């Protein structure tokens, strides 16, 4: 029981990661691919934060009456990663918009077909 509760986080993280991965490799729609990438990214964030947690710990901001703080280092890494993540997502979406304008579609197959028919 303790083993299951202690690893539930990691298993859900892996499940989410695989769901995101599956979306990226099996779906042809570019917007959906980006959503899948974001799910993958979110699972990595959750993994890091799960690792940083300490039982009966508290938020890493010094305050009277608290002794155990959770590990601040993964928080820093993930905090910046989230902002960078949204920046890259925006870049990907901008590319999708330009692809739509150039090809008239956002389905991967149709883009391939148009490329080959030239």
């Amino acid at each position, binding site marked *: 029981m303790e083993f299951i509760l202690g690893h539930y986080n990691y298993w859900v993280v892996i499940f989410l990661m695989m769901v995101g991965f599956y979306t990226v490799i099996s779906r042809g729609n570019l917007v959906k691919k980006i959503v899948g990438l974001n799910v993958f990214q979110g699972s990595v964030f959750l993994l890091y934060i799960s690792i940083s947690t300490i039982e009966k710990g*508290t*938020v890493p*901001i010094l*305050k009277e*009456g608290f002794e155990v703080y959770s590990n601040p280092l993964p928080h820093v890494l993930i905090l910046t990663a989230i902002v960078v993540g949204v920046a890259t997502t925006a870049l990907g979406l901008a590319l999708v918009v330009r692809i739509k304008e150039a090809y008239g579609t956002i389905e991967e197959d149709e883009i391939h077909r148009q490329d080959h028919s030239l």
Partner: protein
Amino acid sequence: MYIAVTIAILITMALALARALMGPTVYDRIAAVNMFGTKTVLLIAVFAFFSGRADLLDIALVYALINFIGVIAVLRLVEQGEFHSGSEVCTKTDKTNSE
């Protein structure tokens, strides 16, 4: 005692999530997402008091704000997208102010 409130909020979240998953119309989903956001705000507020860290209330505040802006943005898209399916689709610009 906090645990009773927490469980109540979690049940509500589950019901709202179910509506968001099933929702026959777009508006049902938006209403469910809005409710979900409000419940998350409450959950964080309750958790902040339970754990004795009132700093977390800032996060609840940001949630309330972002949730509102998100709903307005979604409505913008839905409304304009359905009204102007012709050439003049200016989803994010206001009708009165667009050139």
